[in-house]
C-alpha cells in the first residue's frame, strides 16, 4: 500500500509530459530511447529486459526522449525532478527513496534534477517477449522470496515485489515460476542457494541489479547486512 501510491505520482509526471504530444506526433516518433545516455550505466541486458543505473545531474537536462518499452523503476534517493514536455510545459515532482513503480512506454519528455542530490534510480525496460509461468512440481511454495515481501504492482507484464532480508532470519525456500530481476535499494552479502548445490554468496551494492531465471527452487537470504531490493517477476 505504501508503495502503490507512488506509481500514481510517477504516472502524473509522465502524463504531464505526454499531455500535449498529439499535435507533434511526428517529431515524437523520431525521438531517441531514454537510455543509454550520459549518466546511465547498463547493468544487465537479455531477452526479458534491460536494467540501467541512471543518475540525473542537477541542472543537466536529459535529451528529449520517448520510452520504447514499458519500464519499472526503483528510486535510490529522495529528489526533485523537473519534467518537460515537447511544447516546453514543465512540472516539478518529488521522487522518494525506495519508491518502486511501473510506467508505460511512449510518452515523450525531458527530465532534469533541480536540487542536490540529483535523482538516482535503477530502471528496467521490460521486453515484449512473454514466457508461460513454470509449473511448480516441487513441494516448496511458489514465489515466496522473503519474510518481508510486499506486492507493489501486478499487471499483465510484471509483478513487482518490495523485498528485504535480514541476516539470521529463518530462510524461505520456494519455487520461482518466473524470470526475475532484483535491483538493490540497500546492498549487502546475499546468499542464493539451489537444493543440491553449494550456496553462492555475493556482495551487491545499492544500485546494482541481477537476473535470475525461472523454473528453479531457490533460498535467498542475507549473509551480511539488511538487504532491501525491488524484485520484478517478468511474465
Amino acid at each position: 500500500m505504501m508503495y502503490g501510491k507512488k506509481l500514481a505520482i510517477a504516472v502524473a509526471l509522465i502524463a504531464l509530459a505526454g499531455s500535449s504530444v498529439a499535435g507533434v506526433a511526428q517529431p515524437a516518433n523520431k525521438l531517441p530511447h531514454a537510455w543509454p545516455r550520459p549518466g546511465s550505466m547498463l547493468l544487465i541486458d537479455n531477452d526479458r529486459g534491460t536494467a540501467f543505473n541512471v543518475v540525473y545531474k542537477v541542472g543537466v537536462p536529459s535529451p528529449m526522449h520517448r520510452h520504447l518499452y514499458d519500464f519499472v523503476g526503483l528510486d535510490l534517493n529522495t529528489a526533485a525532478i523537473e519534467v518537460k514536455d515537447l511544447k516546453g510545459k514543465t512540472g516539478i515532482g518529488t521522487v522518494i527513496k525506495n519508491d518502486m513503480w511501473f510506467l508505460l512506454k511512449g510518452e515523450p519528455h525531458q527530465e532534469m534534477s533541480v536540487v542536490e542530490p540529483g535523482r538516482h534510480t535503477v530502471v528496467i525496460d521490460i521486453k515484449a517477449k512473454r514466457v508461460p509461468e513454470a509449473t511448480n512440481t516441487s513441494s516448496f511454495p511458489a514465489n515466496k522470496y522473503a519474510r518481508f515481501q510486499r506486492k507493489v504492482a501486478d499487471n499483465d507484464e510484471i509483478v513487482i515485489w518490495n523485498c528485504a532480508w535480514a541476516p539470521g532470519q529463518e530462510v524461505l525456500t520456494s519455487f520461482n515460476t518466473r524470470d526475475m530481476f532484483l535491483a538493490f535499494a540497500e546492498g549487502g552479502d546475499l546468499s542464493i542457494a539451489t537444493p543440491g548445490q553449494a550456496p553462492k554468496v555475493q556482495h551487491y551494492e545499492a544500485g546494482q541489479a541481477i537476473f535470475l531465471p525461472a523454473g528453479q527452487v531457490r533460498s535467498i537470504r542475507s549473509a551480511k547486512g539488511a538487504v532491501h531490493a525491488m524484485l520484478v517477476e517478468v511474465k
Partner: protein
Amino acid sequence: MKNKTKAVLGACVFMVASTTVYAQAEKDLPPGWPRPGAALLVENDRGAAYNVVYPKDQPTPFHRHRYFFAGLDLNTATIKVTQLDGKFDLHPVVKNHMWYLPKGLTHREMSTTEPGRHTVVIDIKEKSVPEAKNTTDYPTNKYATYQSKVVDNDRVIIWDTAWSPGAEPITSFDSRDMFIAFAEGGDITIATPGQPAKTQHYDTGQAIFLPGGQARTISSANDTIHAMLVEVK
C-alpha cells in the same frame, strides 16, 4: 493414574503461576520511552514524539508500550525482537517506512546489523478532539502535491508527504492537530493567510506539532523535503 493427575495438576499450577508472573511482570514494565537513545522532540496533550536510536548489540530494556504509536523508519536495518518468554524474531526495517502499532506491546529490541535502527516515533495520547469545521474556501487537509494515505483509523491518519522547491504550493484548511516527522530535512516554509511566512530548517529525524483549525500553505524553500504527517483525531 494418580501420578498422572498429579503431574497434570502440577503443570496447570505452574502455567497459572507463570501466567500470573508474566502478567505482573508486563504490568510493571517501563514504557518504550524515554530511555537511553530516545530524545524527546515534542510533547503535548495530543502526543509525544521521540527520535530513537537502537545501537547495534545493545538491547533495550523490556518495556510495554503505554500508547498507540506511529513511527517512521529513518534507515534500513535489522532488529531482533524478544518476547518476555525469551522467544525472538529478526526483522528487516526499511527506510521511509511509516507505520502504526497498538499499545500494550511488550518486548525488548536490539539492532543486529550496522547501522542500528533509527526511527521517529509518536505516542498518541488518549485525548480526542472533534475535527474543526472548514469555514474557508480552501480544501481540507491537502498538504502537498505528493501526498498519499498510509493509515486511517479511529485515532490517526498518517500521510506520506513530500515537497519540492518550485512545486506549486497548496493552501488548505487543516482540520486536525498534526505532527510532522521529517524523513528528509530541509528549509520548510509555513504560511498562514494574512501573516508573514515562516521558513525554518529541519533536519532528518526532527518533528514538529501544528495545531488544527487553521488555513496553511506548506512549501519547500530549497530542498526536497519528505515527511510523515500524522493527523490526530
